[in-house]
């Protein structure tokens, strides 16, 4: 994986308060990365450092190989940032505001009108370009905020709590929008709404009290939390199959499908898939299907946070 965003033992303190402590990870181009954590976990601080608003107290960060110490302004030009409160000048018209931000980020004057039109269409504010920003609803303000973040076509887009203060309909629209930003650019979206992260992200960074507890896909996090979940379709009744499971495999759901076939959903806490398969086959039950199940993110997250992870910085190949 070619990392576009890389941090190495990144730390940040506000006086005696440690907001980030030794955070190392690497993310590739085109990924949508969820930054997950409780309030005060360090999510916003991490994004503010990646955006170049704050400088780290220790460690390093690079965007596309450029570090703040090398050329902070070059690094900032590769990043688009939407803070939790969109940074909008309320007295300006949307078109003028986007034109100002585009020019500020180095978009050529002759390209600006076209660029504004394209981005406005992308975030569905093309019918509102001549409205004054202060008159827009929060949902549209967030969209204008995203428009300003992607107007200069950055490699990395940072969205801090993009769905906060939105109504349910706006949340659905925002979710689709965030999802659509991935692919061409790396997107970081912070949230403590697990569903948002579950619905929109390719991988997840779990922060807790300034430390990186885990980084990986939802399945990888499930393994880290000691909770890999699989589903097995087996030629036996559910009761028969459940009685032959190895230690460390616990059936959390089962159903008889009829015809001597049943499905079992298993939590693997220490047992491997191969052991489950061997135990069932050894008992003379044919296995029709065995596949991993996407773990429930809420439980995975709580397991990681309550158990303090036990695997700080684990998951993906992290760090430099």
């Amino acid at each position, binding site marked *: 994986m070619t990392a576009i965003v890389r941090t190495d033992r990144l730390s940040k303190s*506000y006086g005696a308060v440690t907001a980030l402590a030794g955070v190392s990870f690497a993310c590739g181009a085109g990924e949508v990365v969820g930054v997950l954590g409780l309030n005060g976990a360090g999510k916003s601080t991490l994004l503010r450092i990646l*955006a*170049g*608003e*704050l*400088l780290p*107290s220790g460690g390093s960060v690079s965007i596309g190989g450029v570090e703040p110490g090398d050329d902070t*302004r*070059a690094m*900032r*030009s590769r*990043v688009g*940032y939407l*803070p939790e*409160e969109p*940074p*909008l*000048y*309320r*007295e*300006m018209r949307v078109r003028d505001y986007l034109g*100002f*931000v585009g*020019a*500020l*980020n*180095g978009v050529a004057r002759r390209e600006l009108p076209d660029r504004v039109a394209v981005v406005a269409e992308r975030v569905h504010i093309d019918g509102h370009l001549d409205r004054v920003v202060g008159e827009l609803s929060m949902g549209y303000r967030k969209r204008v905020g995203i428009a*300003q973040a992607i107007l200069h076509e950055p490699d990395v887009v940072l969205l801090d709590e993009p769905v906060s203060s939105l109504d349910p309909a706006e949340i659905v629209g925002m979710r689709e929008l965030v999802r659509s930003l991935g692919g061409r650019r790396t997107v970081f979206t912070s949230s403590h709404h697990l569903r948002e992260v579950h619905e929109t992200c390719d991988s997840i960074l779990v922060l807790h009290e300034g430390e990186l507890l885990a980084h990986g896909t939802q399945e990888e996090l499930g393994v880290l939390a000691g909770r890999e979940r699989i589903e097995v379709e087996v030629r036996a009744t559910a009761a028969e199959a459940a009685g032959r499971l190895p230690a460390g495999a616990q059936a959390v759901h089962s159903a008889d499908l009829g015809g001597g076939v049943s499905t079992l959903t298993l939590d693997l806490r220490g047992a491997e898939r191969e052991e489950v398969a061997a135990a069932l086959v050894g008992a003379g039950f044919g296995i029709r299907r065995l596949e991993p199940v996407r773990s429930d993110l809420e439980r995975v997250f709580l397991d990681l946070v309550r158990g303090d992870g036990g695997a700080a910085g684990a998951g993906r190949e992290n760090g430099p």
Partner: protein
Amino acid sequence: MSTVLLIARRELRAAFAGLYGWAILALVLMLDGLFFNAWTLGSQRPSSEVLSLFFYTNFGVTMAAAVFVTMRSFAAEREQRTLVLLLTSPAGDWQVVLGKYLGALGFVLCTVAAAVYIPVMVWLKGNLEWGQAAAGYLGIALAAAVCTAIGIFCSATAPNQLAAGVAGGFLVTLQVLFWLLSGISEPPLDGVFAAMDLYREHFEPFQDGAVHLKTLVYAPTVSFLFLLLSVRVLQARRWR
């Protein structure tokens, strides 16, 4: 430079976009008009004295305008959480400070220009000395440059607009009270305080038509110093 001008242009437009800027402009015009009416209309003063009195009052009004305009500059953006837009853009901290400074100074000079009708009246009804008028306006511009830089520094430092206004008002007032400190100080401090005084030492000769080289050095130097401090404040906030 285009980034500086871009930020300055937005600042200037923002000042005129809301009620606040127009209120300052109205207040400046009202005070200039009231003082002109009270001190000079109906009197038998010579034109040069009338013009000198106008520049005297305009100096004070401009100082106040500079404080009121700049107290919003960084502090309001911080309160409204829009400053992050500038701080995360490719613009350097110097460009941000300079852009905001030029925008605020541009507005302050607009308030100065709005009262140009008074010298025009002197020209129409009296005997205007163009040299005195030019020197007076140069002095006003230099004083505005200094007071605006002080205000920008206070706005960059203060946690909110009110604190920025109070700090700016205090520092700007201090600039014209150095001559008092000079009077009660022993050498060499008295000379230092005298040299720092904005009105007696630097502006007063301009209102009477005399252009002093030392003021042409003093004003840009003090302005630069406060802008440099403003940049340092922004940089320090990134580390806090």
